[in-house]
Structures are given as C-alpha cells and as structure tokens.
C-alpha cells in the first residue's frame, strides 16, 4: 500500500464506528454531584446571610465612611492654616501691596 492510500485509510478509520457510551450509573453520579454543589452553595449563602455577619459588614461600611469624612475635614483645616501662613509672610515683605505709586514725574 502506498503512502497516500495509507493516509486515506487512516482518515476513514472513524467512518464506521459506534458511539462511545458513558459509564453505568451516569445519572446517579450526576445527581450526586448536583446535590453536592447545591449544598455547598447553600452553605455559602447561609453564612453570608447570618445576622452577625451582615451586621458587622454594615458597621464596617459606616466606620469607613466616617473615617473618609473625618479625613476630608482634616484636609480642609490644613489648607486654611497654610493660607494664613502664606498671608502673614506676604504681609511681612509687603508683597500684598499691589497699588504702589511710582512717581514718574520727578527728575533724578
């Protein structure tokens, strides 16, 4: 047999075949797996819905929000202080005076 014929024979080797069948009790094992997965889901959901857990999550959210609000107020205080410091320096060196009159008529 030449190479081409051999390759054709290989390509046709699946032409007449029967289906591979699943092992016995496939449905039983499938049901067992579905029950297992359902029970695992139930455990996770039960845990999340526990009052203690739900309450602690709520408290954590409130605390985090409070911290964020307090931190933003601190930031506002700091920037007010900075402005006051800048103004006092400017006053010392008369940098705030913008209306200095220059006598352009006097002769030197």
């Amino acid at each position: 047999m030449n190479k081409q014929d051999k390759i054709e024979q290989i390509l046709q080797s699946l032409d007449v075949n029967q289906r591979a069948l699943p092992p016995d009790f496939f449905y039983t094992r499938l049901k067992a797996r579905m029950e297992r997965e359902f029970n695992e889901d139930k455990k996770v959901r039960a845990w999340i819905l526990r009052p203690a857990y739900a309450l602690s999550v709520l408290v954590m959210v409130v605390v985090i929000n409070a911290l964020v609000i307090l931190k933003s107020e601190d930031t506002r205080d700091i920037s007010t202080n900075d402005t006051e410091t800048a103004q006092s320096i400017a006053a010392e060196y008369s940098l705030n005076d913008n209306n200095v009159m220059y006598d352009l008529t006097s002769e030197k």
Partner: protein
Amino acid sequence: MNELELIQRLRTSDEAAFKFLVENYQDRVFNTAIGIVQNAEDAEDVAQEVFIQVFRSIHSFKAESKLSTWIYRITTTRALDHLRNRKSKKRFGLLQRLFGEGNETLYEVPDFNHPGVALDRKENAALLFKAIKQLPENQKIAFTLHKLEDLSYQEISEVMQTSVAAVESMMHRAKQNLKKMLTQGLEKKKKEDK
C-alpha cells in the same frame, strides 16, 4: 414527551423530565466530549457539567434552534474549556519542574483508543486522534461532530453558529492539516523503523 413539553417541564425543575433529558442525550454528549478531550474520565466530567449547565440555564434557552443543537454547542464549549485548563495545568507543571528538583519523570500520555471503534481500525484511529489533537479548535469541533456524531454540514453550522460555507472550508482545511500531520508521522515512523 415532545421537545416543547420537555423544555416546559425542565423549566419547572421537574426531575422526571431531567432524567428523561439525560437518558436521551447522554450518549451524544459523552461521545462528542470524548472525541474532543480524548480521555474517558474527563469526558464524563464534561458530560456532567453540560447537563448541570442545561438544568441551570434552560430558562435562557429561546428555542430558536433545536434542543440538540444547543446541547451540542454547550458540549463543544465545555470540552474546549477542559482542554484549555488541562494545557495551562501542564504549563504550570513544566514551570514547577524547571524550578523544582527535576527528579520527576515525564509521563507520556498513551494513545487514545475510542471505545466505539472496531478492533481492525483501532491502530489507524489512534493515529488519527493523535493528529486531531493538534488541529485548531474550530477545525477540531467541525471534524469531530462530522466524523463521530455524523452531523451534516448544515447541522454543524447551526451548532457553531456559522455558515455552511464556513464549515465546508473548516472541513477542507482540517483534512489538509490531518494529511500533512499523518504524512509527517508516517515518515518519522519509517525512519525510526530503519
């Protein structure tokens, strides 16, 4: 039980309807899965996942196509996911061997023997499955559905949600690729025998 009635009963989580579905489709699902993953244990895992997915998402099945088309589509998708996971596990295993002690012996996967192939064709079928393993995903699906499930190009196009012309093209390229791989394989074997 006709298809519409089956779908309606599945939507009510009717166990008898689900059992009917599994008993009527398990052969198709398992045969398709084993053709793609080429391992009986993995094929059973895939088949279980397919029926679980059907059970969970029957409400989203719009009945625009046949139930069998939808189930074939889920099967091929799940089987490909399984192959991709297997490949990434292998890559991780290789990294472990590179950075580990390197004392582990490399295990070579034996040739796949499809249980439904006649005895006189087993050797040739094993060579063919080895070559199918290396095909691109879409060619693998089209070729497997055609050869193992005897689906027409029209049916395959519905499963793969593409045109018949595209399926014809995939099959043509699959055969070309398989011939090339088989030729190389035979030449290699000839050299080894010498």
